[in-house]
């Protein structure tokens, strides 16, 4: 087979699409991610250059060795002139290595230290990882004004966000590449990650530490919105669950509060007050359900509630036996919880 260099280059091109999009460390949307991206590019350039130089030197050495091979080289009786030259090269290489590594280390240290610095009053959000979903708590001056939601973080543009990371079971890791670096979530320990979003938009985050069967389907969206919009959104989230709009939704509320759902889920304003599953008070207002597994539509809610173990095998929500009418009603009610 003849080599096709153009074809090969064309086949590599699609890889470049991985450089942009809602989840890319190479497409930074905030100062923290930008300083990390700068670090990535500098390291790549410096290391690439060193690699080229080393290969070049090896090539030259091989070539010269071959050119000069003969009895003149007597390893046991080196000429002092060439010996001194070799010594100079080795010492020079060692000094260069030490200098380069020290500079890179210092750069990395300064960049990582700048990640925790924040200017201005930060918004503090608590993020707790569970197998396999995220609990999000927006703090306020008094605990009764805290708001708990799940699987989606909304933040105001331009204001630093202080994420307090913890875990309810095993080790997870929070990574939103477009906005910040990774930070682990460790049981029994609080870690802090600060970032600022500079532009409105949706950025995808993903659990970055293998945490069990559904680790792959443990995603999260970070939505940056203008500050006034964010405040009114937060006020809306603070409200108890919407009243059912019609009879079907009313029947759905009966199901959600009377069946096993209420033992695991909280719907504020009803008697459902379980705490082991995501808060469903405003589940209809979120973009996705089950940690980024499905879009929040009435149909997807129905599919999820009918058979969670087929949609996301192994997740901790069991299949609760429901009749067709109950299922229809409860998914209508959930979709209405805006």
């Amino acid at each position: 087979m003849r080599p096709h260099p153009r074809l090969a280059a064309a086949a590599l091109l699609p890889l470049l699409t991985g450089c942009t999009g809602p989840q890319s460390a190479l497409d930074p949307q905030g100062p923290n991610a930008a300083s990390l991206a700068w670090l990535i590019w500098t390291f790549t350039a410096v290391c690439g250059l060193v690699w080229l130089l080393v290969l070049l030197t090896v090539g030259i050495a091989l070539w010269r060795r071959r050119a000069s091979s003969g009895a003149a080289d007597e390893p046991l009786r080196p000429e002092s002139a060439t010996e001194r030259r070799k010594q100079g090269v080795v010492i020079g290489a060692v000094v260069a290595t030490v200098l380069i590594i020290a500079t890179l280390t210092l750069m990395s240290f300064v960049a990582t230290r700048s990640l925790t610095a924040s200017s201005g009053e930060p918004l503090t959000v608590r993020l707790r990882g569970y197998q396999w979903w995220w609990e999000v708590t927006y703090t306020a001056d008094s605990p009764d004004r805290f708001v708990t939601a799940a699987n989606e973080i909304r933040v105001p543009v331009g204001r630093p966000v202080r994420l307090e990371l913890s875990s309810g079971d095993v080790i997870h890791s929070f990574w939103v590449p477009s906005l910040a670096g990774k930070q682990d979530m460790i049981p029994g320990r609080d870690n802090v990650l600060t970032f600022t979003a500079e532009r409105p938009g949706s950025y995808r985050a993903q659990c970055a530490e293998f945490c069990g069967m559904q680790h792959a389907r443990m995603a999260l969206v970070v939505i940056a919105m203008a500050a006034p919009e964010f405040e009114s959104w937060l006020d809306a989230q603070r409200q108890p669950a919407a009243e059912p709009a019609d009879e079907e939704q009313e029947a759905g509320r009966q199901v959600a509060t009377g069946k096993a759902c209420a033992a695991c889920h909280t719907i504020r304003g009803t008697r459902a007050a379980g705490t082991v599953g995501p808060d469903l008070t405003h589940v209809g207002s979120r973009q996705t359900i089950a940690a980024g597994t499905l879009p929040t539509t009435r149909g997807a809610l129905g599919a999820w509630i009918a058979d969670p173990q087929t949609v996301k095998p192994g997740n901790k929500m069991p299949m609760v036996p429901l009749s067709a009418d109950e299922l229809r009603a409860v998914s209508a009610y959930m979709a209405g919880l805006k």
Partner: protein
Amino acid sequence: MRAVAIAGLAALLAAGCQREERDLRLDPPVTAALDQVAPMANAVGGAPPDVLGALGEPYEGNAYNLSEGKRLYSWFNCKGCHADGGGASGPALLDGWWRYGSDPVSLFVTLRDGRQNGMPAYGDKLTTEQIWQLVGYLRTVGVSSASFAAPSRNDEMQSRPAENRAPASAELGTPPSR
């Protein structure tokens, strides 16, 4: 001859590929059948559902189900009344003494329907499968005989013999006073 020996050894290695099956999803008719226990008139003892045998007794011998049972034990706050099994306002669950029996059917009925002196009914909070997972777990916490399956280990400090220690206790202690 050598080829045969190598093939035989390779076949032996393949035995290491066998893993425990995790049944993540029961078909609804199976779940319904699992609820068909036939307890005696005093709600202690009785016949387990036939389907349990057909499934191969998955709630006592399967480590995944035991782990789920262990998780549910803290999720549904059994700890609040029974502590880590040593008992508090509710009776101890690992001393080998049972007020209502330790057979699967008695435990199932205890959890599903509750018991008169303060054990709440969990029939509307847990699914049938979850109740069986808890039953399996309860039957392994205080056992006096060895078992091949154990739930995942504790993340907190051990306040009692680990479930995978077998037997957990060699003999019955003194009966608890009521």
